[in-house]
């Protein structure tokens, strides 16, 4: 982990009419860091992710991702990030290989590197022999892992994961987190939202959002000491209640 900031957010405000979805968010994320972005439903997580991904403009404030300004150059951010949403987001009627080819193509990879990356990532998942299977019939756990692989296929600097493990069994969740660690070791920054508080313990840094504001931000261990709680779960409940 270096000291280079890959995400810099300063006084980010997003309003929908009179409703303030994001209230003066300020935080930094370092290269290779795993940030757990926590908060109850409706706390404003998704809104913040949309702004960081460059598909929604902030009302005010400064946002920079991978060295690019989210307001001025959202298209440059898009090329440098990977994204996986909570809804399974590959195409069910295409084969595994066709899905890789599609997203590789969309991100402008050459034919050769698409082939190489597909082989590399599928072998890592031990799914290479299934590459010509249509996705529809595959188990959800496989699909989630495939979606993650597709999201990191073009070597993005930041990967946004919006509740990637919802609805997946514990074993697959564990395997999924191994993939996240590996990507982080390769220097990719991981920005992940989750409702599983045990997963939050795996993160380098956690951010706790309540009603549009970041109430706590820091290493899980430090935060637990600071608030005098035993787990991130207790921390979450304590902050969300007040």
């Amino acid at each position: 982990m270096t000291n280079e900031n890959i995400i810099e957010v300063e006084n980010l405000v997003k309003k929908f009419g009179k409703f303030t979805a994001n209230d003066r968010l300020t935080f930094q994320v370092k290269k290779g860091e795993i940030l757990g972005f926590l908060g109850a439903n409706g706390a404003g997580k998704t809104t913040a992710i949309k702004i960081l991904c460059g598909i929604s403009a902030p009302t005010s404030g400064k946002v920079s991702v991978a060295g690019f300004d989210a307001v001025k150059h959202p298209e440059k951010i898009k090329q440098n990030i990977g994204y996986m949403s909570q809804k399974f987001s590959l195409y069910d009627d295409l084969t595994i290989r066709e899905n890789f080819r599609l997203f590789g193509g969309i991100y402008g990879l050459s034919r050769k590197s698409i082939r190489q990356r597909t082989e590399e990532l599928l072998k890592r998942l031990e799914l290479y022999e299934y590459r010509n299977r249509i996705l529809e019939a595959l188990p959800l756990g496989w699909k989630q892992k495939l979606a993650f692989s597709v999201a990191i296929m073009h070597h993005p600097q930041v990967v946004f994961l919006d509740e990637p493990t919802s609805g997946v069994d514990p074993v697959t969740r564990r395997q999924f987190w191994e993939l996240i660690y590996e990507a982080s070791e390769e220097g990719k920054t991981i920005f992940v939202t989750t409702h599983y508080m045990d997963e939050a313990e795996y993160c380098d840094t956690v951010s706790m959002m309540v009603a549009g504001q970041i109430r706590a931000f820091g290493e899980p261990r430090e935060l637990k000491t600071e608030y005098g709680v035993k787990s991130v779960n207790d921390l979450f409940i304590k902050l969300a209640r007040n």
Partner: protein
Amino acid sequence: MKRFLAFVKKEIQHIFRDTRTMLILFGIPIAQILIFGYVIKNDIKDVDIAVYDQSKDEYTRQITNKLTSSGYFILNRELDNMKNIDRIFKEGEVKLVVVYENNFSKKLHAENNATVQLIADASDPNRANLITNYSGAIIHDFVKDEFHIDQLPYQINSKVRMLYNQNLASVFMFVPGTMALILMLVSAMMTSISIAREKELGTMENLLVSPLRPAQIVVGKVTPYVLLSIINAITILVLGVFVFGLPIRGSLTLLMLESVLFITLSLSLGILISTMSPNQQVAMFISLFALMLPTLLLSGFIFPIENMPKLLQWLSAIMPPKYFITILKNIMLKGTGMAFVWKETLILGGMTAVFIILSVKKFKLRLE
């Protein structure tokens, strides 16, 4: 460009992999054109008639012969009294009963006047009208030939010629209408459903986050359907020409260009519908009810616009298919060129521009 092509390729894979989509794209157009061509007819052929001939003389036999040899009527049965007429109609086969009065020939010679009664089954009024017109005309012809009425002084002869459609074949009217209907449905419904599907499945989010521009996404989704709709238009024309003998008297190039314009319009309408629908069902519902019914009812396809109440006439003026059908009929049947259809072309072009502007605005709004 390479990114865009990768996206279009995927779209084509979706279409060819889904048998239902393929069926809607290619099966329905062919089925519809054949159904409309063969089943829905305004002309009559082989109508069953019954004859109650009370005089059974030279003239009545000749008239009956003339009716049944015309190709329009078949003699189903002969009657010997008036009582059964009601029952015969209720049986449903016979649509017309011809009743000759007693001493038909004698009266005709002596008084220059004899009566034949035509009783039609008017539970289908349009058809009853057609049947009595046809049979009346045949009887009139007979009298003219037999007594050389042409030589009477002070007679005005009206000689009718049906231009552009000599035989009044209804297929000439249905092919252009069906073409408009199918292009509208296939282009607008299929695009709106395919965009709505991406929204419903959540894959749209991934596309929006990708480096593809929103315009590229929309154009990429539409491109395969442009090609398929052009293939559809050609299929319909080929069927019309070779199966139903429809003429194409004007320029084929102009016809194709106008079709492409109409396809573009339908596609942009489809995009607009998709921006308003959260899922596939809604997209389909709007497409069917907002496009299919008005196209069938208000475009002049089946019902003449001139006969509608004023309010519906105004409504029909904003129905794109109305103009396309006019253009098609002009080019195909009358053989006219751009000089006669520029007004309709301009209207279609204007509507296309409006739909595109609206959907771009809506699409951007949704991103926020």
